[in-house]
């Protein structure tokens, strides 16, 4: 499937551009280091754009490929283990991207870090430890976030993609296409940073792919922050194991979940206006 191969190519572009960005980022002064990269480093703004847009492309490609697989009913070609690990690619990708968002260190990222810490901490038994492990203890710098962004989650995303795609690396044509697309998009779409301090009375927005969750947390208790995504993953994962009416029902639940997520996103955007 061309979409899957292109998505793999975008992952490679994201990883390589991330490696190129690493020397410019400082865990102790994240926002200042990125402002310097954006404003005072030749091609810095563009390089950051390539990294962000190829990562977003990877997430969108992963989502679109999942829908394509479910639509064409090709999920049965994968063994149950590979299927579940492929489904896990979605949260792993989102966690990798979320780490990148938090590494900005601006007011939106600081707010996102506080919320994500509370969401993680609300997981029974292991929540507090998990929050400390993934995000560091409150008051620490962003080094643990960077470690999991560039290391744990990127490595996991690569392993899961490689297993699913049965290739250690993307093919040359997909990589070239992904690179050219990312280069052009980075020239056209600016990826800006926010202010260091939130303007009084303003509602700060999280990353675009988590706006629905942020909107849900306006109305639902904090555990919704991990229970809602878990529900979707369970539903999509189970689709592989059933046929006929049950498959249709599960897909309808996933579609309803997505519609609800979109509604929460719109609700939040309206509240932020």
């Amino acid at each position, binding site marked *: 499937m061309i979409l899957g191969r292109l998505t793999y190519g975008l992952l490679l572009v994201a990883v390589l551009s991330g490696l190129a960005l690493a020397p410019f980022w400082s865990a102790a002064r994240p926002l200042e280091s990125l402002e310097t990269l954006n404003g005072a480093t030749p091609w810095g703004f563009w390089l950051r754009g390539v990294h962000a847009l190829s990562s977003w492309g990877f997430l969108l490609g992963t989502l679109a490929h999942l829908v394509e697989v479910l639509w064409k009913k090709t999920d049965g070609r994968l063994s149950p283990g590979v299927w579940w690990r492929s489904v896990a690619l979605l949260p792993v990708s989102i966690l990798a991207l979320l780490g990148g968002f938090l590494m900005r260190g601006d007011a939106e990222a600081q707010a996102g870090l506080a919320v994500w810490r*509370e969401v993680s901490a609300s997981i029974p038994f292991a929540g507090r*430890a998990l929050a400390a492990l993934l995000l560091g203890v409150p008051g620490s710098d962003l080094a643990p976030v960077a470690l999991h962004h560039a290391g744990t989650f990127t490595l996991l995303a690569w392993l899961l993609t490689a297993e699913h795609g049965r290739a250690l690396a993307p093919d040359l044509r997909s990589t070239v296409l992904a690179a050219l697309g990312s280069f052009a998009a980075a020239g056209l779409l600016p990826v800006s940073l926010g202010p260091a301090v939130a303007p009084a*009375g303003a*509602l700060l927005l999280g990353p675009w792919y988590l706006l629905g969750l942020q909107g849900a947390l306006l109305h639902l208790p904090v555990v919704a922050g991990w229970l809602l995504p878990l529900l979707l993953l369970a539903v999509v994962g189970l689709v592989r194991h059933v046929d006929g009416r049950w498959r249709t029902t599960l897909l309808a639940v996933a579609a309803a979940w997505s519609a609800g997520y979109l509604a929460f996103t719109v609700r939040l955007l309206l509240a932020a206006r």
Partner: protein
Amino acid sequence: MSSRRDFLSGAWAAAGAGAAVAGAAVLGKALSGSPEEARTVELPEALLMKAERDGGLVHDGLLVRGPATAPVVLDLTCTHLRCRVAPVEGGGFSCPCHGSRYDAEGRPVSGPALKALARPHLMRAGSGFTARLS
């Protein structure tokens, strides 16, 4: 032969699972204490005087106001999901994450937050105070 292999596989799996659980327990114990630790903020006399003179000021995540000898301190951490709230025009506070609103005394007015902003415990420290946040 196959029963011996099965036994060894099972033993390895059990040992691995046991090691994983033990590791997770040790790691969890080591890490879970840290976020709960209380934080203290020093409020020297000069800062309290300035807060009194200016009608209040924000210092290290705290709003300090009132007389320097008996200051009133509010923790500007939202009680919903612990974002930093900000003072808004006309008094009161607003949370930038989910839009919770508090009145000037820190009581929740609207939005998802249900509890009032915390008031840290103040202890005399020389001519100033130390605020203790839980």
